[in-house]
């Protein structure tokens, strides 16, 4: 299953709830959620832990827009828009944690 999160982890509980509820699968971080995959943030340890249960992706154009392209956390995979589409196809279902 693909989990899509678009909210910043430091001001919204969407990603935290996603990580707590979901029992594995793939997570795609888009829009303000890309901050969760950046180094130096207080959320970094939480995402590092999640990497053992989930395959985590981040949408590169959203990361670049926010000036965070050089801070991507190791172990997180950057994808472009076609990679986003591929993830929605290879997974049986999607959950958007709005």
């Amino acid at each position: 299953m693909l989990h899509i999160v678009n909210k910043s982890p430091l001001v919204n509980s969407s990603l935290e709830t996603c990580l707590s509820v979901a029992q594995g699968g793939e997570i795609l971080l888009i829009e303000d959620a890309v901050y969760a995959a950046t180094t130096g943030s207080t959320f970094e340890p939480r995402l590092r832990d999640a990497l053992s249960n989930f395959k985590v992706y981040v949408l590169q154009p959203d990361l670049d827009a926010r000036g965070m392209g050089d801070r991507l956390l190791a172990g997180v995979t950057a994808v472009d828009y076609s990679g986003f589409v591929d993830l929605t196809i290879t997974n049986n279902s999607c959950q958007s944690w709005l």
Partner: protein
Amino acid sequence: MSDIKKFMFVNRKAPYGTIYALESLEVVLITAAFDQDVSLAFLDDGVYQLKKGQQTKGIEIKNFSPTYRALEDYDVEKLYVMKESLDARGLSEDDLVVPVKVLSQAEMGALMDQQDVVLSF
């Protein structure tokens, strides 16, 4: 002019994910045109608005971060960033597109108290 008021714009949202950051900037420029005493405060995810290196071509949204550097041309020179918010995001003053004054939470609160008008974004 005797009717100059102290305006503070409180920015707490990341850029691009919502329209708040851009809308705040628009209103700041309008206010500055009326010769008011304008301060900008950046708290929580608002500090991300000032992050260097924003490249928005891929999301087809205008990169408005260079506009913060133009604010001094409008005599808007009071930019305050909360230290705790920078620290929580692994950012420092060197990561920002403009020179700012870094304040503690308590200092930020005291500065808010001195304002005549506070606008939140």
